[in-house]
């Protein structure tokens, strides 16, 4: 039988606020355990939550960016369950009335087409702390630094049909939240993580199959592998006469498999009810308009603009707009150079990105800024150096040997464009290669390349290649 996969993702994006969603404690990652937890985060008796306005602003930003409705009135509820890293015995989360509803995201598929993925809702909630089971013999440690960190849970419609689509969607959303500056996107630190609801059904059946939820996938690769595994597991199960049960599963990256965590029967009854400590969240038009005005140019729009404004291919525009810092850098180089967008694109996507990668650096920490790169490209443009020599200059720039012109001077890399100087080199080469000359003149045209090579070699790559070509043709004629 042919099977169809149905996937919906719930993505938790940690919002990049300075303080927590209901307290003034800092949200910075990696502090000593329990040093970033105030009385509110600890759930001390008598404490009360006060909503962080910035978290609301960030949620609204995402809502507007995905064309969603921003609820004028939304409600925080308590999700009640006991766990040692949940200090109050409940998590404050939005339940029936979320702040963002009905948005969509367009993903690009491998065959070059695109697909609209519905986003059911995005709601604000607080994160829990962490239980630490190592280092405490027979006991568990609790670190509440993360407790109260603002999260935006973004729930997709069950519109995804393969693991690849799920990854494409997750990457697109990742790009979006990072673009908006509302999430640092750091998946290793858990700032962007995903639960996947996966089910299969016979192709052409409209009814959904029973789904399993795979929890806490914190890399694109794990999402893909976990879903692939789960699809296969479910199909095998059904085809061998079994039934998928609705349950929560965990992905084990070491074994590459999912396994049950708890079934629906054992699921908690969270006893949701509106949190009486927090009034309904009312958002007015003025607030929404302020947020709208603050939105940056979104990735898809920017990509289109790069294609029309700079004449770039869809691929190049896509790469250059993948992140805001990269696109900003590119545009700064073009602006500084005053044109040649394709040359700039090749360099930003090529050597520049390669060096960043090699050194594991962010653009912000790049030793070569946009003006410096433009300075180098200008010397290609005005034929002071060739593109090949420019690669060496770039490396020198990268390691801090000074500015482009100084490096060119110091290393004597200036391109030779003086005809008589080039002719002199050509004469030398011809004089040293009588055999090749004879063969060439006898009709072995292929040897032209040999002469070019020799000239370039003798000139240490500095002779202008175009001039070398023209002059050689003449000289070789004899």
């Amino acid at each position: 039988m042919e099977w169809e996969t149905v996937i919906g993702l719930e993505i938790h994006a940690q919002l990049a606020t300075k303080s927590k969603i209901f307290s003034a404690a800092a949200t910075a990652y990696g502090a000593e355990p329990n040093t970033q937890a105030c009385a509110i985060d600890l759930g001390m008796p008598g404490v009360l939550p006060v909503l962080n306005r910035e978290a609301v602003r960030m949620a609204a930003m995402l809502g507007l960016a995905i064309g969603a409705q921003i609820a004028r009135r939304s409600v925080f509820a308590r999700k009640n369950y006991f766990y040692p890293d949940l200090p109050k015995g409940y998590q404050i989360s939005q339940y029936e009335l979320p702040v963002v509803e009905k948005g969509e995201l367009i993903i690009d598929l491998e065959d070059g087409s695109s697909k609209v993925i519905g986003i059911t809702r995005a709601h604000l909630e607080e994160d829990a702390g962490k239980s630490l089971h190592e280092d405490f013999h027979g006991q568990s440690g609790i670190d509440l630094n993360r407790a109260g960190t603002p999260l935006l849970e973004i729930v997709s419609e069950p519109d995804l049909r393969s693991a690849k689509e799920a990854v494409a969607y997750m990457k697109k959303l990742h790009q979006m939240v990072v673009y908006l500056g509302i999430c640092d996107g750091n998946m290793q630190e858990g700032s962007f993580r995903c639960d996947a609801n996966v089910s299969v059904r016979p192709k052409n059946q409209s009814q959904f199959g029973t789904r399993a939820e795979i929890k806490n996938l914190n890399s694109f690769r794990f999402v893909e592998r976990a879903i692939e595994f789960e699809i296969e597991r479910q199909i095998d199960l059904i085809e061998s006469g079994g039934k998928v049960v609705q349950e929560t599963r965990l992905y084990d990256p070491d074994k590459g498999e999912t396994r049950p965590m708890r079934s629906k029967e054992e699921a908690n009854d969270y006893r949701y009810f509106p949190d009486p400590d927090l009034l309904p969240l009312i958002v007015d038009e003025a607030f929404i308009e302020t947020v709208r005005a603050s939105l940056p140019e979104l990735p898809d729009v920017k990509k289109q603009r790069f294609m029309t404004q700079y004449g770039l291919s869809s691929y190049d525009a896509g790469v250059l707009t993948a992140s805001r810092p990269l696109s900003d850098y590119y545009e700064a180089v073009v602006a500084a150079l005053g044109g040649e967008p394709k040359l700039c694109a090749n360099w930003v996507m090529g050597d520049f990105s390669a060096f960043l990668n090699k050194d594991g650096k962010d653009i912000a920490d790049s030793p070569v800024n946009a003006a410096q790169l433009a300075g180098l490209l200008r010397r290609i443009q005005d034929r002071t150096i060739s593109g090949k020599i420019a690669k060496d200059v770039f490396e020198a720039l990268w390691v801090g040997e000074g500015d482009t012109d100084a490096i060119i001077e110091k290393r004597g890399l200036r391109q030779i464009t003086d005809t008589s100087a080039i002719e002199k080199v050509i004469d030398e080469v011809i004089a040293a290669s009588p055999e090749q000359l004879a063969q060439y003149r006898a009709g072995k045209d292929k040897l032209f390349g040999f002469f070019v090579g020799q000239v370039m070699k003798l000139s240490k790559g500095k002779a202008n290649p175009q001039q070398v070509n023209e002059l050689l043709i003449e000289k070789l004629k004899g």
Partner: protein
Amino acid sequence: MNPSAPAAMHEQTIAQLSAGLAAGQFSSAELTRAFLERIEHSNPQLNAFITITAESALAQAQAADTRRRQGQAGPLTGIPIAHKDIFCTHGVRTSCGSRMLDRFIAPYDATVVERLNTAGAVMLGKTNMDEFAMGSSNETSFYGPVRNPWDLNAVPGGSSGGSAAAVAARLAPGATGTDTGGSIRQPAALCGITGIKPTYGRVSRWGMIAYASSLDQGGPMARTAEDCALLLATMAGFDPRDSTCVDRPVPDYVAGLNQPLAGLKIGLPKEYFGEGLDSAVAQVVEAAMAEYRTLGAETVEISLPNSQLAIPAYYVVAPAECSSNLARFDGVRYGHRCENPKDLLDLYTRSRAEGFGSEVQRRILVGAFALSAGYYDAYYLKAQQIRRLISNDFHRAFEQVDVIAGPTSPTVAFNLGEKVDDPITMYLSDIYTIAVNLAGLPGLSLPAGFVGQRPVGLQLIGNYFAEERLLNVAHRYQQATNWHQRTPAAFA
């Protein structure tokens, strides 16, 4: 008493003591010492205090005296008061009447405490209360029952029973209380003092250990409406730490006390004078209404048709919220933890079973049930709808009348142990007070007479933020009567 001799310090109201301090008749240190001595002497009988903070009280008193010498004293500077043990007090045990928090030292001050400290008030100690404010007789306290100063066999009411008994027995001239379903007004009535539950949102709940967050409200308890006005003026006001606290200016409650009552329309809900009301209590309330008429007020019968729904709605909403509010007491971070837990579940269940008393456990279970899947709509949602009906009743009533009056409680103080095994009868003790919390309105109880040796409280209910009017209506009555001046013979 010789009318020309000044009354003993403990016999004076806060207003009088404030004047005495201002006139230099005595220092705050002397005043504080006098009350500490009375507490030391009488508390073993009454059990009104869980914690007595003599040392810090004297230090605060001395600081108040210094402040006065520097010309920076306000009306409450140097006035000793007691705090209900539900308010967090920095560095001082804050038990909430529970074994769960028997050894809990609060790491911060509640806003109410902070405001009174800033005003220069002196904290004598922390008063006894029903465990987590759940009770109407103060018998659910881990620290044992409080006794009613008017009759040591009687309960003082609850849950602010310790505060009420302390003020009635003149162990403190004023105290803080909290009121979720009547916990300020009912003990005030049963102990013959004055207490006001302000409009929900008038007083910050920051640092006030939550029982039912949408109903809880702190307020003052003292002998007179004037003293309540003095205390409330300091306690009330916006606090950015409490999202439900209302940002609205606090009127000068004292300045408004003497407005005449001519033309005042008092509504008497017929539902508050029906079955279940003790006839002797009814007579006291009727006499009080007669007094109001001589003061120029008009009394009219009104109806609050959904009154009978208040108790059932309350006993869904309050337990539901408490089941969640009390989840943080899990033995993990603070509070009672059982010995040698064998696993996590054992840690939770034994810590909570040992730390909470039976009434608290009952309400947690009821509340968890009311919120559980499949029952939420039938209980919690229905109760919230009833709240709206009850609020609408009051809204309509206040289109006709300025204040509503009636008995605070259907009976005078009952005997210790009398209702402790019968929760439903106990719950009926708050039948006239609960609707006020469900609607979020201000309510005040003031002494209006006696049945035998036991005081009767008159309840006044006002419209939203009408505390000033309520205090005024109570004050004018107290200018014309002397019920509030009666002192229990054993504590004169």
